[in-house]
């Protein structure tokens, strides 16, 4: 579903953030993307959604070379993804309901059908009672769940979540992971970036670890991560 082949990325005037990164994420797979702050996790996720372009190498999504897409094809590529941004990117000029409505407006859904879907998405993340609130009035965990609702409302086949449990208590983090697991069960492909050691320690999911711009060869399982951290 997602293939990186020898992908390098350098921001103008900076050093290489990613160096010859290659990996594959199968359809319906759920994996973590780990690495400490600044390792290039956000950059890697942005490359998948063609928010950034690689300097070399190819990024394939559904066998489509993302970095070669024309700019007028980008919107349609991005509609395949549910994007959960590290900085949330919620809109504070509108209420919770309208924030979740935006992706459906973009795709041109009828209002009635949209409203139904928005309420279903809000229900899924437990925010149905807050649809009239402004996002600014929500707690950190609620804002995070709102991001998830907006990402899933369009029923995407791929979810890309950038540190979705970032500043949350363990309890909230677990809640959110449960939501992701339920999507995994219905066949959605998920890539979740995190530097939450506790989360990584407990999981038996695949872990793709970034270190100094490269993927650690032996970073598939949580146990391996322990070794590298101790070293």
């Amino acid at each position, binding site marked *: 579903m997602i293939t990186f082949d020898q992908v390098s990325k350098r921001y103008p005037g900076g050093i290489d953030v990613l160096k010859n990164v290659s990996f594959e994420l199968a359809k319906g797979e759920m994996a973590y993307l780990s690495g400490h702050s600044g390792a290039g996790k956000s950059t890697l996720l*942005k490359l998948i*959604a063609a*928010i*950034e372009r690689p300097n070399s190498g190819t990024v394939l999504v559904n066998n489509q070379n993302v970095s070669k897409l024309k700019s*007028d094809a980008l*919107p*349609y*590529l*991005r*509609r395949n993804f549910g*994007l959960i*941004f590290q900085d949330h*990117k919620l*809109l504070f*000029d509108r209420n919770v309901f309208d924030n979740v409505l*935006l*992706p459906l*407006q*973009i*795709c*041109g859904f*009828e*209002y009635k059908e949209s409203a139904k879907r928005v309420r279903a998405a809000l229900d899924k993340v437990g925010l149905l009672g807050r649809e009239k609130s402004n996002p600014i009035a929500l707690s950190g965990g609620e804002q995070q769940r709102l991001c998830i609702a*907006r990402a899933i409302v369009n029923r995407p086949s791929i979810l890309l979540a950038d540190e979705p449990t970032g500043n949350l208590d363990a309890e909230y983090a677990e809640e959110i992971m449960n939501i992701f697991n339920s999507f995994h069960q219905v066949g959605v492909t998920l890539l979740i970036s995190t530097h939450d050691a506790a989360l990584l320690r407990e999981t038996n999911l695949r872990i793709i670890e970034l270190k100094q711009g490269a993927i650690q060869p032996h970073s598939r399982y949580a146990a391996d991560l322990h070794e590298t951290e101790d070293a």
Partner: protein
Amino acid sequence: MNTLSTQQGVIRTALGRMFVSPMAGIVNILVIGIALSLPAGMYVLLKNAQGLVAQLSGSPQISLFLAMDATPYSEEQIRRQLNDHQNIKSVEFISRTDALNTLSEETGLTDVIAGLDKNPLPDAFVISPRTSNAKQLDELRNELQKIQGVELAQLDSAWAYKLEAFVEFAHIAVLVLASLLSLGLIAITFNTIRLQIVTQRDEIQVAKLIGATDAFIRRPFLYFGAIQGLLGGIAAWLIILSSLQLLKQPLANLSQLYASNFALEPLSAGDSASLLLFSLYLGWLGAWLSVARHLSLIESR
């Protein structure tokens, strides 16, 4: 994609943005309205002036007075020249005898005229030209004046044609004024949309990130420009209408003094529609230019 409900959604979005700062919106609409009402109002007055000119001058005529010593032979020659002239519609000959009879009948000075030992009036042709254009009439008069045996070629109601020439000049002045103010209107919309794009920056960025096409992002701004332009046009229309209403009575009094039944014609339905369409188009154009200029400055990251 472009279902009716999404169109309504876009219009609602555009109107919603207008009511975010209603005062600024109203000021914009008023400025546009006043700017448009100036040339449009002058246009209405000019159209009325043209009507007045036509009413006062009727169809133009040139009177050709022959020399007192003209012979029937030279009269015949002049008549042939006039008949052959392509800019002349019809020619009527009024002999000096006929002229004198008419004069005595119309004035009642029969005795005085009978007492004259010599007819003081010349033979004359009255000519209806094909044109009613002031400049062409003047050229025709000059040409006829040069004909051998013609003492005097006189353009009747020459003042009306001069007025018409002035109206024509004023028309061009109004056109220039309208062009300048239209540019101003485009500039106003351009700037309003620029400010909107700046304040909507977050929304635009997020929308792009989650798959909005450029057309989707552009649409509410274009609708906003068009709606603001249209409302400005309606304001202009109301300004003109009420101004004409104010002028009506004083003008009626004035025209009574001149024993004329002249009344101000308001904007016709066609002119009103043109005004509204034009203002809508200008608003749309200003928004389009602004979006083309500013949207690309917002990068999708």
